[in-house]
């Protein structure tokens, strides 16, 4: 039982991060109908920027307390990523807004490669060690263990998601975003500044990505220029699983994908008597995705896809 509980906890931690990143994909898709494949790289930039800030501050011997250091690094990372998200949209996607759908998609892949290569030049190919600002003290929960950082990941993700739902449903900006998603032309006629709303969407998504990057890198203690690629792919899967364009769908999809991966990798070997091993972890996750797409193409909670496509 404690092993099962541990797998559930592992899945929740993994899934919270997927959900945070998936929100970025889904928000942009909801408004522009664009799959922003560069989003995973924004996560990576967030992680590496925060790492550089921490290293810089540790090097200056200011003797800042660790939690403050972490907050400063997080704030800088969020700032940089928001600027990055804004620039990506402004430079790469806006000129193509009226182009055929394939053009921005290819551009997104190009931006992704560009960011990865730039990060490789700036931070090198090396795996960076992320200093443990929060001691990874394991806590025992009914026979399973969870570390401080993992608790933080679950709590922070939950808070951010709640905050985002509040923003979208109860603020002027949120209402403008929903209006733009529904029909950009009409929203524009109603006095909504579409360009500003789209920029805001990219910046909010990138801020979430920065938080995810900082959380992921401090959980595993590693940051690397390539780290955003696989994470981005998984988060995209989570977004599609939940129904792309749908905010609660991204959260559900993220958590579900985390749990499927964790339980899949943990039990697949035993259940098949060693016939299939834990290297089928990803196969399992993508199999679920295919099943969902076959039997419910709009995703678990999605309704918008059919009207968009």
């Amino acid at each position: 039982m404690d092993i099962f509980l541990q797998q559930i906890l592992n899945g929740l931690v993994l899934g919270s991060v997927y959900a945070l990143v998936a929100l970025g994909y889904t928000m942009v898709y909801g408004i522009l109908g664009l799959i922003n494949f560069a989003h995973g790289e924004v996560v990576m930039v967030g992680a590496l920027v925060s790492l550089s800030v921490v290293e810089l501050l540790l090097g200056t011997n200011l003797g800042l307390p660790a939690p403050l250091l972490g907050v400063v690094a997080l704030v800088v990372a969020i700032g940089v990523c928001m600027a990055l998200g804004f620039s990506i949209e402004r430079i790469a996607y806006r000129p193509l807004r009226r182009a055929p759908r394939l053009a921005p998609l290819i551009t997104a892949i190009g931006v992704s490669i560009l960011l990865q290569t730039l990060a490789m030049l700036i931070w090198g190919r090396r795996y960076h060690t992320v200093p443990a600002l929060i001691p990874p003290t394991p806590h025992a929960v009914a026979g399973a263990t969870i570390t401080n950082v993992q608790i933080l990941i679950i709590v922070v993700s939950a808070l951010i998601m709640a905050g985002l739902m509040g923003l979208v449903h109860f603020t002027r900006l949120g209402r403008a975003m929903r209006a733009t998603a529904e029909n950009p032309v009409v929203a524009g006629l109603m006095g909504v500044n579409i360009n500003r709303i789209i920029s805001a969407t990219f910046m909010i998504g990138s801020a979430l990505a920065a938080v995810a990057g900082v959380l992921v890198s401090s959980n595993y203690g590693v940051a690397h220029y390539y780290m955003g690629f696989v994470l981005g792919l998984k988060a995209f899967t989570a977004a599609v699983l939940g129904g792309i364009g749908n905010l609660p769908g991204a959260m559900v999809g993220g958590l579900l994908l985390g749990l499927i991966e964790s339980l899949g990798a943990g039990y697949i070997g035993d259940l098949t008597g060693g016939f299939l091993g834990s290297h089928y972890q990803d196969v399992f996750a993508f199999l679920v995705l295919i099943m969902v797409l076959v039997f419910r193409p709009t995703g678990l909670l999605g309704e918008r896809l059919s009207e968009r496509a």
Partner: protein
Amino acid sequence: MKEGDLSVHLKTAVVGAAAALALVLSGCGKKDEAIKIGHAGPLTGPVAHLGKDNENGVRLALDEANAANIMLGGKKATFAMQSEDDQADPKQGPIVAQKLVDAKVAGVIGHLNSGTTIPASKIYHDAGIAQISPSATNVTYTHQGFKTAFRVMANDAQQGKVLGDYAVHKLGAKNIAIIDDRSAYGQGLADEFEKAAKAAGGQVVTREFTGTDKTDFNAILTSIKGKNPDLIFYGGMDSQSGPMMKQIKNLGIGAKFLTGDGGQTAEFLKLAGDAAEGAYASSPGVPLDKMPGGKAFAEKYKAKFNIEIQLYAPYAYDAANVLLEAMKKADSTDPAKYLPILAGISYQGVTGNVAFDENGDIKGGSISLYQAKGGKWEYLDTVGG
């Protein structure tokens, strides 16, 4: 050679490239009939510092041979190195190999990585030229039936066997969990480890898998925890084993941790942090200060190049000297004449005795074991050799 990603040493790369260029240019101007010895390795890119290190080892051996007035076929022999950059890229391996063959080198020392060494070996084999790799450890290299392929470092099969034996007999492991990263290196090493551990009487309770792009191992580690092993073996690189070690400690798994040369690095210690304490890892060969001629070689190297040895230079030096020795004994630089002698040679090098088995693998290649203590790899023991 490990497949790990090392930091970019731009300076080394530039110096390496410049040196290679200078060498090519100087080679053009001369008309003397120097005997060309090829060297191939990454002289640019992330592992350029290791490629340059090997090149230096070869250069040292050739310079000494030139100073020793060796007579071949009644004439004084002069050796010149032609060094080529394969960028550690499997696509570049055969290209530079062809370049060396076209330049009519008498023999080749290289390449550095298994990934470049294996595709290049076909070119040298077809041209009938001897190839001695100082550092490629993938088993395949010497098991393609090529009579021209040799290596002076123990291969992954030899390493896996030593590790399996060591886990059961020295570390007292009875129930063993094995993880590998599904790469040619990781999987190969884990397979050999499993065979040896079973043969030694250990029981493999589970075999789990991950990938070279993964950082989360909580799911498989939790599954392993449920099987209660007393040792976890990992076949793969430090970029995975470092974070893995952390997660093992966080999950409260008390099992011993053992890994191969992919984890016996400074990078592993950094990535795992405090969690590294007590981990075991192996590395082919012996540490410099345990080599029979290690100290003298280190001094010579430092005096000539004014930098420290990076890693494999002593092996490159021995590889070059073994090749020269075979040429001397055959009294010829014709591969057809010296190859049979090279295959049966026994030569006392700085890394130990160099002799090859029927595949071209080094006989009794030694494997050293280390344990992480206080943020350092502490030397424990050398097996074989």
